[in-house]
């Protein structure tokens, strides 16, 4: 099977075979990150532009490191230091960047659907690094890689995602990806932070914190966004931590060998007690390491291989 996608705008519509291909490729990339000289010439001469409208530590650095490990040249643009402050539109900004012939545009934006808007107007390969509350496909891919690495498989696992589901692109992409790979996903959070029609996402809604963690193989916690405090969505961080925070007593209910994940950054003491953040179940730092490998794999598949090349030349453009 060869890679034919030109862009990665989300995991919606991405097949289990494609996901497996990314994870398998990431496996070999991970080895590079352990060498004394962490560089291969695969993407030498290619340019990757990181276009981040929203602040980011992990994703942005991860993409940057990933591209450089493959010998690509990287350039970064953030909204606050670009002409967006002068009122330039998203499309004009993107077309301007495209005129400089990058091989790939990695975009993070606060509006859901921004990458789709760009994909309609640009020929360049586009990777969605997170759009509004819609999708964060590379996060879900690295999450799946981490689960597969730790537990040996994805199919048949029970994965519980707990927290502010309604505003979470990480949750959405994970539900789509994990379900495609045959895992069962449970969602839980304060009722005001569950999206309406949550079943439409393809996961079951747990009725309580205990139900959510009971016999789970994977517990994925989401960050509480403090901005949401102002929005009448829950009364206080204290109550959130008491009722929806993950502590060691919950781990006793999960399956033996269960792992705890978090996309970061973690609000210690809010969604997770420090004992869990630093405890034996936590794979949070593995996620970060795997993030580089997964992004290397994606860049390779999208702009490194012959197929990726053909795709961006429009020969077999899909998505």
């Amino acid at each position, binding site marked *: 099977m060869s890679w034919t996608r030109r862009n990665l705008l989300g995991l*919606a519509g991405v097949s289990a075979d494609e996901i497996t291909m990314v994870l398998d490729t990431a496996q070999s990339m991970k080895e590079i990150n352990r060498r004394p000289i962490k560089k291969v010439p695969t993407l030498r001469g290619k340019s990757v532009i990181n276009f981040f409208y929203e602040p980011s530590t992990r994703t942005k650095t991860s993409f940057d490191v990933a591209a450089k490990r493959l010998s690509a040249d990287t350039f970064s643009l953030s909204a606050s230091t670009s002409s967006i402050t002068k009122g330039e*539109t*998203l*499309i004009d900004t993107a077309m301007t960047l495209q005129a400089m012939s990058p091989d790939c545009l990695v975009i993070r*934006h606060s*509006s*859901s*659907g*921004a990458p*789709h*808007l760009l994909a309609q107007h640009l020929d360049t390969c586009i990777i969605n690094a997170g*759009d*509004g*509350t*819609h*999708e964060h496909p590379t996060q879900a891919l690295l999450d799946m890689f981490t689960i597969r690495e730790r537990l040996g498989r994805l199919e048949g696992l029970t994965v519980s995602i707990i927290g502010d589901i309604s505003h979470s*692109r990480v949750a*959405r992409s994970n539900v789509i990806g994990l379900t495609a790979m045959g895992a069962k996903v449970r969602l839980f959070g304060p009722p005001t932070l569950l*999206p*309406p*029609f*949550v079943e*439409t*996402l393809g996961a079951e809604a747990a009725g309580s914190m205990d139900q959510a963690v009971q016999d789970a193989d994977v517990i994925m916690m989401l960050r509480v966004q403090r901005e949401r405090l102002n929005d009448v969505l829950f009364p206080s961080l204290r109550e959130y931590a008491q009722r929806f925070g993950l502590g060691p007593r919950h781990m006793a209910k999960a399956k033996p060998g269960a792992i705890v994940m978090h996309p970061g950054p973690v609000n210690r003491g809010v969604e997770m007690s420090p004992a869990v953040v630093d405890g034996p179940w936590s794979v949070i730092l593995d996620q970060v390491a795997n993030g580089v490998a997964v992004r290397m794999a994606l860049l390779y598949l999208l702009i490194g291989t012959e197929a990726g090349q053909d795709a961006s030349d429009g020969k077999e453009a899909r998505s």
Partner: protein
Amino acid sequence: MRLLLTGGRLLCPATGRDEAGDLLIDGGEIAAVGGRIEAGDAQAIDCAGRVVAPGLIDVHVHLREPGQEYKETIATGAAAAAAGGFTQVCCMPNTDPVNDTRAVTDLILDRASGAAARVRPVGAITRGLAGQELSEMGELAEAGCVAVSDDGRPVASSRMLRRAMEYAAGFGLPVICHSEDLALSAGGSMHEGPTATRLGLEGIPAQAEVCAVERDCQLALLTGARVHIAHVSCAGSVAAVARAKEAGARVTAETCPHYLALVDEDVGLYDTHKKMNPPLRSAADRQAVRQGLASGVIDALATDHAPHSVLEKLVEFDQAAFGVVGLETALGVGLWLVAEGALSLARLVEALTASPAACLGLPGGSLAPGGPADVAVIDPERQWRVEAAAFQSLGRNTAFEGWRLPGRAIMTICGGRITHRVKE
């Protein structure tokens, strides 16, 4: 100048006429209707196989002039109206400056003279649409406004809207209500439903409209004023209007072609040409709105024609302006609904002529002799493909791009003047 329309199906719900026959226009008036008419000196127009209806009336359009002429002007909007079979449109006051004084009303009427359709201004309920002070409705009525509305926005304060209804009634002005609970709709860009959840977009629940429609209907009951509920989009609103009418409130209502034809899923992959307020709703809502229009609970079909430029639409979905154009596709979509079995042709024509005229007390909307020579000649079998690039409107933001519609107005006559003609 005399025009003789021969052999068409004369369809005039206002006068209960539906029969084959001729229609004679003399100057700006309908001189004779029905049967076989001899008028050798008149220009004969063969209408065999066509429906001859009163010129269509749209009680809800945005013509953007003064202030946003890059989106539409009164001239281009009227041309769009004529192309769609309309001879009369009511333009909303959310211009810049707002139409809350006679100066702006006069400007609009001045720009409208010689335009391809009759333009009836709707004045603002409150100054600047700010919801704080009543506009000088007496002056607006005298200047020629046919109704008042703060459309684009609701009147948030119930106390304010009550007084506005009482005051407007004193001048015979119906109040057109944009019914929306802003606190419930805040932040939303599409209908709150499974599609919004999947797309990661903040939703506007149907209740944001229903709660407000209920309130506005209750105030209509309290004040006895004539109230017209704009752009009904959901089942709850249809039910609320039905109950209000039963209770004796002087409430009328309109819906738009897009609520009859499309649903929230049609937003697809963030298509901003499917973004309007109120938003496209669920399939059940669409069904209820269709039934409401067919039964007459919803009186009229209006377009809420809202032209925007690429500046407002070729952007991120949550940033895009709300609104779609509608004058040039309304009749075609209506005929599509007739073909789908959702509506009878007679009811469609009524909803576009007699009913809107009755809602706002407007002249026209009928083929009565002595009345204005406003006529739409409709070919119900003239298939065409919607192409925004070919529109008369400056606004290209249509929700129906690429649709194949089964029929259209092939000629529009306004005051005896041919304002639109499709080449054979």
